[in-house]
C-alpha cells in the first residue's frame, strides 16, 4: 500500500471532504495561501478551494470557534484550526459552554457539526504555552467528542468521520506525528468513533496509549518482547466516545494494565481509563494498575527538563516490568 505522512493524510481528508460536500469549509489563523497552516496541514487548499472556503482569520480564537458554532448551527460544516492546542484555552467558552451544550440546552433541536483541529504535545522545546496535551479537559465536557489519531491511517479516517458527523469534535493532532509516515489506501474510507485499535497483540500486559505515546509503547513492547514479556498495545483512537469494551477485554486476557498518556497525571486521561478498568474488570487484574503520565508541572523549555517530564519508552518499560 502507498505510504503518506500524517500531515498529508489530514490534508487529503480535508480536500476530499471539501470536494464531496460544499458546506465544508476551513477557518483559522494563517491556514490560507500565505502560510498553509503553522504545521502546513492546509497547504495548497486555498489554491484549490479559494479564500472563501479556506479562510484566514484574525488572531481571535474565541471568535474563530464562536463563528464556527454559528455557521454549524445554520447549515455549514466548519473545520476550525486552533494553531496550538494550548490556545484552545482562549476559546473555552465557545467550546465548552456553547458548542458542547447547545443541542442539549435547546432540547435536541439543533446539531453542531463542527470540527476543531489542533496540535498538542511536547518534544520540540517550545515551553509552557505551546506544548501541552489537554485532551482530558475536553473529555470532561459532555457534548464533545475527542479524537486522538496516532497514525496517518487513523488520522484520515477519523477526520473524515468527524467532518461527516453531527457533533462537535476536538480533533487532537500531535506535533511530532506530522512527518510520521504510514500506509493509507487510495480509496475513500472512514473510521467510526468509539472503536479502539489493537496496535499490537500480546498476552502478558495491556498497555493503553494514545497519540505519540502509541509509538513509544510499541517500541517498548518490541524491547520487552526480547525479554519474554508479551505486551498488547491498545490505541483507543477516540477518548470520547471511549471503546471500553476493547480495553476491558484486553485486560481480561492479560490481567495487567499500564495506561500511558502525555498529560498531567492528576485527573488526566490515564486516571479515567484506570478508573474504568478498576470499575469494570477489577476481578481480572492480577496486579495493580500502573499509570505513566507527566508529573503535575507545566512543560519546561530546556531540553533536559522537558525530557524529564514527558514519558519515554524507558518509563513504559519500567511500569510494565513492575507488574509483569
Amino acid at each position: 500500500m502507498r505510504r503518506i505522512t500524517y500531515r498529508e493524510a489530514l490534508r487529503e481528508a480535508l480536500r476530499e471532504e471539501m470536494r464531496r460536500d460544499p458546506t465544508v469549509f476551513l477557518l483559522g489563523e494563517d491556514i490560507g495561501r500565505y502560510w498553509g497552516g503553522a504545521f502546513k496541514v492546509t497547504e495548497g487548499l486555498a489554491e484549490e478551494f479559494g479564500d472563501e472556503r479556506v479562510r484566514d482569520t484574525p488572531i481571535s480564537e474565541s471568535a474563530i470557534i464562536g463563528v464556527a458554532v454559528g455557521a454549524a448551527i445554520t447549515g455549514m460544516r466548519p473545520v476550525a484550526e486552533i494553531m496550538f492546542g494550548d490556545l484552545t484555552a482562549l476559546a473555552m467558552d465557545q467550546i465548552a459552554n456553547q458548542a458542547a451544550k447547545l443541542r442539549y440546552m435547546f432540547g435536541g433541536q439543533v446539531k453542531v457539526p463542527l470540527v476543531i483541529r489542533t496540535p498538542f504535545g511536547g518534544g520540540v522545546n517550545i515551553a509552557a504555552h505551546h506544548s501541552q496535551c489537554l485532551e482530558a479537559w475536553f473529555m470532561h465536557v459532555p457534548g464533545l467528542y475527542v479524537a486522538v489519531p496516532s497514525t496517518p491511517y487513523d488520522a484520515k479516517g477519523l477526520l473524515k468521520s468527524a467532518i461527516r458527523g453531527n457533533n462537535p469534535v476536538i480533533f487532537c493532532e500531535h506535533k511530532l506525528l506530522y512527518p510520521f509516515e504510514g500506509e493509507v489506501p487510495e480509496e475513500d474510507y472512514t473510521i467510526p468513533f468509539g472503536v479502539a485499535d489493537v496496535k499490537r497483540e500480546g498476552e502478558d500486559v495491556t498497555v493503553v496509549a494514545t497519540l505519540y505515546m502509541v509509538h513509544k509503547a510499541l517500541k517498548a513492547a518490541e524491547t520487552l518482547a526480547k525479554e519474554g514479556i508479551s505486551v498488547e498495545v491498545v490505541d483507543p483512537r477516540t477518548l470520547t466516545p471511549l471503546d471500553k469494551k476493547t480495553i476491558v477485554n484486553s485486560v481480561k486476557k492479560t490481567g495487567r494494565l499500564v495506561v500511558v498518556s502525555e498529560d498531567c497525571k492528576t485527573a488526566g486521561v490515564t486516571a479515567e481509563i484506570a478508573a474504568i478498568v478498576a470499575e469494570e474488570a477489577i476481578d481480572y487484574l492480577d496486579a495493580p494498575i500502573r499509570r505513566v503520565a507527566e508529573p503535575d508541572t507545566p512543560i519546561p523549555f530546556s531540553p533536559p527538563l522537558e525530557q524529564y517530564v514527558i514519558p519515554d519508552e524507558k518509563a513504559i518499560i519500567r511500569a510494565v516490568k513492575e507488574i509483569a
Partner: protein
Amino acid sequence: MLNLSKEKLVEMYRLMVKIRLFEEKVFELYAQNLVPGTIHLYTGQEAVAVGVCSALRKDDYITSTHRGHGHCIAKGADVKRVMAEILGKKTGYCKGKGGSMHIADFSIGMLGATAVVGAGIPIAAGAGLSIKLRGTDQVVACFFGDGASNQGTFHEGINMAAIWSLPVIFVCENNLYAMGTRQSMVMRIENIADRAAAYGIPGVVVDGNDVLAVYEATSKAAERARKGEGPTLIECKTYRHRGHSRVDPAKYRPREEVEAWLAKDPIKRFREKLLGLNVLTEAEIQQIDREVAAEIEEAVRYAMESPYPAPEEALEDVYA
C-alpha cells in the same frame, strides 16, 4: 532635540546596537543548532523597545511578547542571562524553564513575556491597577503586535484600563504582519491607534523606526499616566527585518516593501542623526559598536559555558 543629554542619547544608541547584535548572534547560534525550540527576532524594531524603555524609570514595569528579547534588553536586562535562558541554561533568567518566548526579570520591572498573543494586555492593566491601589507613581508599558490587537483581550484590557484611569501605556508594534497575515487582511482600518477613540483615550501614531519619536510619545503618555489621567495607546509603525520565526523565509512580503523598510533601518537612521548633530563622531560610533560586540561575545561565552539545569529541577517552582 528633546533636551536629551548626550549621555542619554549615547545610551539609547548603545541599547539599540546591543539588541541588534544580540539578535544577529541568536540567529547565528540558531543556524548552528545551538538554540532549542524556536526564536522570534526583534531585528528592525529596536527603536520601539529602546524609545519606550528609555522614557521609563527603572521602577516602571513592562510586559512583553513572544518577540521579547529586545524589550528585556531595553529595560536593562543582563544579556548574559538572557542568552543563557535562550540556550536553556540554569543561569538563565528563568532557570531554563521559560526559554526565548518567556523571559522575565522582576528585579527591573520586566514582568515577563507571554507567548499567548494578546495575553499581556490585561495583565499590564492589572499591574496598572496595582500601582493605583498601592498609591505609587509607577507606570506600565505593555508591548504587543498588530496581530494581538485583534484579540478580545485587547478590547477588554484597554477598556478596563481606560474606565479606571490606570497608568498604562499600550504600545502596539505594528510591523504590518502577524506571521503571514497582512494587517489589511484582518482589519479595515489603517491605524490601530484609531481604536483608542472607542475607549475614550488618546491614540497616537508614531514612526516606530525613529527612536526619538517613540521616546517623545512615551514620555508624554507616561506623564499623563503618572498624573492619574489614564492610559494611552501608542501605535509604532515598524517592520521586522527577518521572517516571523526561525526559518520563515517571509515570502509573503513583496521585495520592494522589504527594501523600502530596510532603507529605514532605525539604527542606521539614529546613527546618521547623531553624526549629523555632532553628538557622536564616526570613531566614537565604531568604538561603541565594538564594545557592544564584545559584550555580546561575552554573553555567548557565559551562556555556552553555563550548565543545563538538572532534570529534577523540572519539578520545582510549580507552587510558591
